[in-house]
């Protein structure tokens, strides 16, 4: 397996009224070609910022992101433009990420005009091909975004990301606003496209069930830190970190016979403006020790399965 994406010691903070808001703190992971890596965490854990850093939609403070061995931060104007055509993103809110004043064919042809030298007729043919690829009728090309349902629009969003034949896609909560049956259809489509086109995905979500069903590996984030990472099977069947355990115990199974004992987290999370020097999760952890408050636990790897907790 070749590594397609490698993130090493990534740091990113924002300036919030003169105070430092740490969004991502020392995050490392890698994704193999053709696989799907999930990033899961609660709101404010830095998942979306991570996706943006990986695609250089925002600059990073330190650390490195490399895709196919190329350091993303080193790319200069023309190379960057070419690189963008190979690395795309599907944003969370499909309504917000498309211009309502333009028709679908214009929306889908824009990346083609930017990145290729296709003639008008070639562009039209490609637009039709893209719509077919995401299983939409080609007649949709002449519609406006407000004429489409949420699921249809998300398909257009995916088609736009695929327009320039990318190799790597960041999927930022691609189905969070959709109904269950539509969600399943979109994810099945993404899976199908992945095997057909050999795509690599970074799937950002707060939905653990979705991560379990569609990813090969996962990183569990909490307040900018990865607390646990590894192959899906290892992390979901044998969670080690108390936070992962609590998260998994809170997912509700649709099988009424499957009863889980829920671990209810007490306490409140720390503010990202005022992080402790010890473990980020210590304010809500039931097994907290005095040492937990002293220093950040290091990620300890056992094979592929890593966990950042001194209690293990």
């Amino acid at each position: 397996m070749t590594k397609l994406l490698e993130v090493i010691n990534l740091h990113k903070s924002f300036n919030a009224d003169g105070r430092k808001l740490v969004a991502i703190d020392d995050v490392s992971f890698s994704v193999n070609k053709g696989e799907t890596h999930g990033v899961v965490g609660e709101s404010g854990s830095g998942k979306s910022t991570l996706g943006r850093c990986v695609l250089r939609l925002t600059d990073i403070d330190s650390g490195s992101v490399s895709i196919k061995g190329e350091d993303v931060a080193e790319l200069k104007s023309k190379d960057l433009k070419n690189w963008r055509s190979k690395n795309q993103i599907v944003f969370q809110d499909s309504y917000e990420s498309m211009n309502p004043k333009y028709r679908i064919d214009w929306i889908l042809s824009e990346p083609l005009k930017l990145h290729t030298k296709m003639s008008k007729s070639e562009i039209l043919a490609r637009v039709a091909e893209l719509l077919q690829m995401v299983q939409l009728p080609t007649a949709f090309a002449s519609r406006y975004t407000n004429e489409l349902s949420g699921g249809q629009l998300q398909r257009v969003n995916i088609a736009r990301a695929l327009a320039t034949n990318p190799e790597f896609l960041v999927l930022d909560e691609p189905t969070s606003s959709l109904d269950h049956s539509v969600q399943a259809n979109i994810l099945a489509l993404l899976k199908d496209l992945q095997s057909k086109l050999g795509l690599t995905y970074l799937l950002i979500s707060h939905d653990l069930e979705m991560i379990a069903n569609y990813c090969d590996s996962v990183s569990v984030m909490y307040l900018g830190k990865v607390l646990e990472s590894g192959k899906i099977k290892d992390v979901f069947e044998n969670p080690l970190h108390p936070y992962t355990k609590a998260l998994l115990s809170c997912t509700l199974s649709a099988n009424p016979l499957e009863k889980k004992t829920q671990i209810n987290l007490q306490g409140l999370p720390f503010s990202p403006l005022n992080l402790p020097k010890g473990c980020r999760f210590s304010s809500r952890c039931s097994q907290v020790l005095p040492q937990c408050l002293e220093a950040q636990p290091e990620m300890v790897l056992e094979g592929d399965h890593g966990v950042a907790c001194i209690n293990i």
Partner: protein
Amino acid sequence: MTNVLEIHNLAIQIGESENVAPSKIINNLELSVRKGEIHGLVGETGAGKSMSVWSIMGLLPRGMEVKSGEILFDGKEISGLSEKQFKEIRGKELAIISQNPFGSLNPVKKIGKQLVDFYRQHNDSTFAEASQKVLEELSAVGIPDPVRRFHSYPNQLSGGMAQRILIAAAMINRPKVLLADEPTTGLDVTIQSQILELIKNRCQELGTSVLFITHDLGIIAQYCDYVSVMFAGNIVESGPMKDVFLRPQHPYTRQLLDTTRPNNKKFNYKDNGTPPDLKLIHKGCNYNYRCQFASDECKTPLSTSRVDAAHIVRCHKFGKLDD
């Protein structure tokens, strides 16, 4: 068990004029909530879940009208009540918590004042007595430091905390029925489970029945006693939760349950997932345009079939599909 809320033959439509066909948002809805149970109402966007709740509360948006049917609350017909009569029961015997707690709270009034107002609306009491009552209710819903929160504004609360405040507001007048309209959408899973536990425990303590609207099948499976599956303004299947989830009969229910186990599908039905055109609703089954088993008989009027005493399904193909 007696039914505290019963809906018979309810139909709601919008936009009827001389040459425009109306959109039928709810048609022939039958639903009953028994005393003390948590009744889950599940369906996709546009199925009419929220609309059913608003019609129960007498809060239908302007332009929508109850075309026919009756809503019996505690044995009394409430769909034709005047606004004045509705004010008597709304917030007192019938309470609601909605998806966005901040939308339900006044941003420029302190939490305590708002809750005191809710209480005094229906109870003859002084401000001091009401405040005492509010503080008790706030601690009952697990708000740490209720006195401080009494003097907070809504923007000083987190999403989970605001939802707790709304639950306190809903329960303070000891309603008979709580309508919970997707109360945990938008909350993180760890907070979601706290809120669900709270609703379940608090309603059990006070003997309140809950009509719980959600599109999350996990919530239904873990918290509800009864479930009704809604599609295009109609209940397609209804029954005790375990019966419906373990032996689903309607193709839509089966397909919906399959989406929760994509790697281990039981039925593997096809469903292209486009929402129905509410203008084209006819006498037959509304699901037939998406159903892979649809045939000509599906366009004929539907009747309700009984799977067993409590489990009902509305499908022409009932008994003809493989299990």
